[in-house]
């Protein structure tokens, strides 16, 4: 998402429909009702829509005025209560990344209220919250960096309103007043007023356009390891997720999806028997699924699993649908076999000439599998139609306005009649975008409509594994030209496949190159003078997804592994080669130096350590506006890789909460490790072969290495935090395995290869 949302980035532009309506609708959908709600609606929901602005007037703005710039209207963000607590309506949803605490720090710093007094909730849909370059989403590691300035200003604006309201009340000049921890003080007369007493008056004042911000030298909360505001609730079971919610009179629903995406229920053999099961309300047919509504979820699940469903036949073959013979191996073959030259994603210098003059050419092809998100909270949704013609939907989501638009379409209502409630997420990692049939909320809406009751749909873990949208299986072919000295003079990369930006936001792309398919391969910091990267689109028939660090999650593994192959072919140490290729970038050299120092000095190995031989691999990555340098230490036990240490030097430019940043980097590293060692969704005969965590192994405690994180604040523009810790980890591990065993793994995950004894 990074590049999509950066308006300055070449090739991508956000289109304002008021001035430049896109000419091309998304291609006609083959994915049925829910997909039809996808593209155009996504577009209308995420772009700044002028017509909607008339509805956005707050009490502080006069009638007829244009809606304020996102992130500026205090009343849309802050409720200041008489007891001194503050409710912050957040543009972002909290799902473990710590954004609720981070925003409380940023706003609290300027408002002069301790973060611990904040209660943070994800705001309902509305134009005030479109603070990510004019749109609203929780993703792309965008939350803090996109909102830092605007949220500081919001806090300062609110504080200024408090001071002016107090000045009026106390009949003194603004300049005579100070604030402290949510109180306005008049030192001369020793009088004070709490924000809670002033809030009602303060919000009637016209906000000052230019309020001074606090001098960073005096920060008390920003840049401090402030404790997370939600930790006690999460340690005591009191945190409320979508799955925990209940509304009066609701029915529970469980579903059974078609084994193959795109097929439909045709016959229900034992419908009458199932209807007679305890607690069953009704049996329903849905697009691509059957459902049972009942008075408890367990009863609904037992009943729906007892249903004997005859499904329509899938197409026998082909890649335009999930055909009866569809397989991940076949899909990979299609990517490998494509003859389409594609489009240039990056070109510099004279690649053809460099290869013609090369002393040596290195070639390698890399592949990565489909991946599931496997977040611990299974998806659920509650839909309730109200007597006044409105609809409430409670659901996990990363983009409320888009879910509102799609919900409205499914319900046949105007979006303004749909309220979206966005509770805390039990992990997300990119899971909670709309993804056509990859989410239960359309089912909840259809079932609520059918039953006339509120309905909560919960997908069992098995149904989640059958319909989660997947990190796309991917393939890239690399070539490098080396000179006599073993230095790379040219690199050419051909990437074939499809990325989620192209799938879901393709109408926003100005070029045919999907940035989410090539990120991690283009725009590298290395001084290789001649470069040519291409992208060839081959669409997947399966639902594809954003997955923590998106294209970087596999592409950095490919590129940085290949760079080690180049080093080897040129007879160079991989660390030294990187250092040499980074000669033009002090920032990257500093980071590489830092990670070497953290690990006790670069040594590739193999070397003897407790329990046997170990070796190390190094990798760099530049994801989401941040920079990382990673070193992994690996041994082999029983043919399997064991990672002992990960050292990560992380430069996000500047930070808000060092403890949260370190926790996020460690978390991302764990996911990178999990993916590279273990994870894959395999299709055979059109059906996924994983149903639960027993058939989709994820990182367990016994495989968790020590993770050492150092934050390097270079002062560069603030980068992302949630995702960037991941992409350096898979290649550092792959490079360490190669150093230890001589085996260069080019097909992920590592678990598919039996590692040699060392």
């Amino acid at each position, binding site marked *: 998402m990074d590049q999509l949302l950066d308006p300055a980035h070449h090739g991508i532009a956000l289109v304002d429909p008021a001035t430049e309506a896109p000419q091309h609708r998304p291609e006609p959908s083959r994915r049925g009702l829910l997909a039809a709600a996808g593209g155009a609606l996504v577009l209308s929901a995420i772009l700044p829509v002028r017509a909607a602005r008339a509805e956005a007037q707050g009490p502080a703005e006069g009638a007829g005025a244009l809606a304020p710039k996102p992130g500026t209207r205090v009343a849309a963000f802050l409720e200041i209560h008489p007891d001194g607590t503050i409710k912050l309506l957040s543009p972002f949803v909290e*799902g*473990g*990344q*710590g954004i609720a605490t981070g925003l409380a720090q940023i706003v609290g710093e300027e408002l002069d209220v301790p973060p611990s007094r904040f209660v943070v909730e994800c705001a309902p849909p509305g134009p005030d919250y479109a603070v990510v370059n004019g749109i609203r989403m929780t993703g792309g590691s965008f939350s803090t960096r996109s909102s830092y300035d605007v949220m500081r200003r919001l806090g300062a604006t609110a504080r200024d309103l408090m001071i002016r309201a107090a000045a009026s009340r106390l009949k003194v000049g603004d300049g005579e007043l100070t604030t402290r921890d949510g109180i306005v003080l008049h030192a001369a007369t020793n009088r004070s007023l709490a924000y809670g007493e002033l809030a009602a008056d303060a919000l009637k004042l016209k906000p000052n356009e230019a309020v001074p911000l606090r001098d960073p030298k005096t920060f008390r909360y920003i840049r401090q390891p402030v*404790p*997370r505001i*939600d*930790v*006690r*609730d*999460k*340690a*005591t*079971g*009191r*945190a*409320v*997720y979508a*799955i*925990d919610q209940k509304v009066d009179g609701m029915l*529970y629903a469980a579903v059974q999806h078609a084994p193959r995406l795109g097929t439909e229920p045709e016959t229900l053999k034992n419908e009458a028997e199932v209807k007679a099961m*305890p607690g069953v309300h009704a049996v329903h047919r849905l697009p691509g699924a059957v459902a049972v509504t009942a008075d*408890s*979820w*367990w*009863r609904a699940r037992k009943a729906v699993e007892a249903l004997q469903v005859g499904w329509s036949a899938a197409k026998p073959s082909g890649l335009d649908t999930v055909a009866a013979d569809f397989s991940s191996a076949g899909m990979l073959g299609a990517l490998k076999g494509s003859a389409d030259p594609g489009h240039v994603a990056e070109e510099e210098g004279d690649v053809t000439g460099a290869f013609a003059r090369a002393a040596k050419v290195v070639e390698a092809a890399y592949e990565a599998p489909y991946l599931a998100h*496997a*977040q*611990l*909270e*299974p998806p659920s949704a509650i839909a309730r139609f109200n007597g006044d013609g409105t609809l409430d939907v409670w659901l996990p989501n990363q983009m409320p306005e888009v879910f509102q638009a799609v919900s409205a379409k499914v319900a046949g209502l105007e979006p303004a009649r749909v309220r979206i409630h966005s509770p*805390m*997420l*039990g*992990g997300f*990692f990119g899971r909670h975008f709309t993804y056509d049939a990859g989410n239960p909320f359309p089912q909840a809406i259809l079932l609520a409509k059918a039953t006339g009751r509120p309905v909560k749909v*919960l997908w069992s*873990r*098995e149904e989640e594994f059958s319909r989660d949208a997947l990190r796309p299986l991917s393939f890239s072919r690399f070539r490098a030209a080396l000179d006599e000295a073993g230095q790379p003079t040219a690199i050419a990369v051909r990437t074939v496949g499809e990325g989620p930006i192209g799938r879901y936001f393709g109408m926003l792309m100005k070029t045919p190159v999907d940035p989410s398919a090539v990120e991690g391969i283009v725009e590298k910091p290395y001084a290789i003078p001649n470069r040519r990267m291409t992208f060839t689109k081959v669409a997947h028939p399966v639902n594809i997804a954003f997955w923590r660090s998106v294209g970087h999650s596999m592409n950095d593994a490919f590129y940085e592994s290949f760079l080690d192959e180049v080093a080897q072919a040129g007879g160079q140490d991989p660390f030294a080669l990187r250092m040499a290729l980074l000669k033009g970038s002090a920032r990257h050299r500093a980071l590489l130096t830092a990670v070497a120092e953290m690990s006790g000095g670069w040594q590739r190995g193999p070397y003897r350590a407790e329990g046997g031989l170990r070796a190390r691999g190094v990798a760099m990555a530049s994801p989401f506006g941040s920079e990382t340098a990673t070193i992994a230490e690996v041994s082999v036990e029983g043919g399997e890789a064991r990672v002992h240490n990960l050292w990560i030097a992380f430069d996000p430019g500047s930070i808000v909460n060092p*403890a949260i940043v370190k*926790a*996020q980097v*460690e*978390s991302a*590293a*764990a*996911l990178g*490790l*999990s993916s590279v060692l273990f994870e894959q969704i395999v299709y055979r005969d059109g059906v996924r072969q994983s149903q*639960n*965590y*027993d058939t989709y192994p*994820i*990182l*367990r*405690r*016994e495989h*968790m290495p*020590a*993770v050492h994180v150092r934050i390097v604040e270079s002062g560069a523009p603030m980068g992302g935090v949630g995702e960037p810790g991941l992409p350096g980890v898979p290649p550092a591990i792959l490079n360490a395995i190669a150093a230890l065993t001589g085996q260069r793994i080019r097909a992920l995950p590592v678990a598919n290869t039996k590692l040699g004894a060392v």
Partner: protein
Amino acid sequence: MVNLTINGRPHAVEAEPDTPLLFVLRDTLGMTGTKYGCGIAQCGACTVLLDGQATRSCQVPLESVGSQAVTTIEAIEQDPVGRKVVAAWISGQVPQCGYCQSGQVMAATALLKQTPRPSDSEIAEAMTNLCRCGTYNAIAAAVRQAAA
């Protein structure tokens, strides 16, 4: 009607005898601190204590609970060991998304009730619940802190 003792209080519930205790807790009794993650005893998000033993409640049919005392996350701070575990979880800032953490806290409490000073390998053996946010190192550190 089945009689249960949960967090020291009697409850009479009506559900099929094969209903997993997990869903009795969550849906029948509204005690949603115990989480559904996988339903096949892989992830441990549903961990409760049965007579003090960490148990994955998705695999406990209602009919098998009998007179065993059920302790859930909702009452964990009423237990002195549980209170120490929660305090260690907070001071160590363990949770990220938090979804698995009820089960982790229950597993840690059961471990420390039986083994007040666990070794690292005993921690590794007892703390097998999955965490997709990868908080494993923070969990182990918090267990050691609660044991100290």
